């Protein structure tokens, strides 16, 4: 299951140079994502205070918190990838011989890179449309939608970067394929 939760598995090896830089960027993303979640806790509590204690109506809070959560998810993607926190089924990889396992790891990482690149390209278009047409949300707050939509290309772009670094680490032998330490089960 989740690679980091299985006792047979270990975290990534020592990385240097650009791989280290990518890791650092992803860690920063983790901080940003965690901060966004914390801010949403604060805003939601403030919203409840305004509504139930001050008896006033709230305008921007629900929307802000929702967009913060979306952004926290997208910006958090590369960090969770770095921690190997995206849950996967590693039953078959565990049963394979190491060379086949490595080939499969290279294949799955490459396909992942393609799909994430696709999401990046179309995500950029999605954002660009909102920006060039100056779309606004149809609420009282009327937030300019290119701001929350920006999280799409940024999140998938950074996830792409982390995936490319992970692929390079498997190619160079720095990372074990699927981070599996055992020879075979």
């Amino acid at each position: 299951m989740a690679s980091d939760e299985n006792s047979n598995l270990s975290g990534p090896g020592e990385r240097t140079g650009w791989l280290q830089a990518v890791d650092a960027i992803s860690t920063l993303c983790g901080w940003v994502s965690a901060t966004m979640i914390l801010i949403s806790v604060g805003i939601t509590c403030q919203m409840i205070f305004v509504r139930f204690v001050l008896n006033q109506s709230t305008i921007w809070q629900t929307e802000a918190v929702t967009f913060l959560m979306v952004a926290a998810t997208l910006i958090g993607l590369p960090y969770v990838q770095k921690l190997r926190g995206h849950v996967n089924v590693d039953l078959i990889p565990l049963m394979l011989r190491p060379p086949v396992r490595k080939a499969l790891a290279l294949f799955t990482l490459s396909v992942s890179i393609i799909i994430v690149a696709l999401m990046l390209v179309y995500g950029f278009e999605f954002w660009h449309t909102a920006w060039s047409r100056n779309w606004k949300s149809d609420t009282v707050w009327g937030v300019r939608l290119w701001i929350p939509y920006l999280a799409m290309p940024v999140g998938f772009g950074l996830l792409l970067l982390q995936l490319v670094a992970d692929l390079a680490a498997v190619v160079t032998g720095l990372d074990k394929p699927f981070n599996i330490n055992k020879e075979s089960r």
Partner: protein
Amino acid sequence: MDPLFLGAILAVVTVLVLFSGVSVAVGLLIVSAGFLLIFDGARSLQLLPEIFFGKLDNFALLSIPMFIIMGASIASTRAGADLYEALDRWLTRVPGGLVISNLGACALFAAMSGSSPATCAAIGKMGIPEMRKRGYPDGVAAGSIAAGGTLGILIPPSVTMIVYGIATETSIGRLFLAGVIPGLLLVTLFMMWSLYDTWRSGAVDALSGRSFTWKQRFEILPRVLPFVAIILGVLYAMYGGLATPSETAAVGALMCLAVAIVIYKLWSPKLLWDVLRDSTRESVMILFIIAAAGVFSYMLSSLFITQSIAAWIGTLDVNPWVLMFAINIFLLIAGFFLPPVAVILMAAPILLPIVISAGFDPYWFAVVLTINMEIGLITPPVGLNLYVINGIAPEISLRTILVGSLPFVACMVIAILLLCLMPSLATWLPDYIMGQAI
């Protein structure tokens, strides 16, 4: 191509992709994009980001990270051990009080944390060594905690139930209530089996209690009560109609963090960051799967697969209970390999229309589905709880943990059968508190 045939191909491809070791969320995106590209043309891919974003753009999803923060901040403290100790001190006169305390602590901790692995780790760290020291068989000690931990996804607040509520657009509050009585039923079954197995193995001495003074009993309460109060407060706010699940969860998260900092002295920035990091990791993982599963179900319906399967099942004219049996087997197998959240997100949009048209209650079905997922948590090959127990009690072999857990799987199957015989076990409480579902 016939949508049904397409559905069959899709099922095979999805299984192959998910078993390749790719992460579940990315796998769902790969399958969705591939099928849309082949059967609907390249233009349909342009919609993917909008659907992905749209799935996340939902205030109800806020409750997921909030309940996760609640659970992570409680799990980072000694609260689990305190809870277990308090129950042990208060239940000394009950035969087999220790294993009962452990299972009770699992149920209560599950109610506070909403996470199965966290429950296992928090109660097991102290409970398993203590049970072994007092002569309980290893299988009972490990199995009871592994099984007790699975209650995390059934007893409210449960992240799994929230995900089901979002995937099927059912009421989260009602889902939470539906899990209460089945949760208590499971705890009771677990307790009965543990006592019987301990008695059967001849460890009768282990069943006799120790004695504690009233002073010892009362002095532990202040450490346990704050979290219990928060949970009761959260549930009251939700069912008293004061606020939505997301809002109450946010207040709960803030209060749990505050209690962890003030009472359990969790004020080092490093420890706080650990709590936040774990919460962020789990939330992002789940939310990514939710968004990807949203894209997946969009693909299913735009290729008419969902509709065709529902229509096809409708023409089969099978007995609803045969259908429910087949669905249970499917869920059980899926749960063996995939995390509960992924199973629910992929299966619920397809299964729910079928289940409802066969005359079953969606809230009852949520409970049955969740118990199926609980079984997956203590059975190989994935069996997350087994590995958690293996991690905290390395001196007990994985085989003993597994064999010790199997009777608890039987308890869960009995619970599912009881729920089939008496659906009101799940539906009575929500109906009583919130009125009949419309």
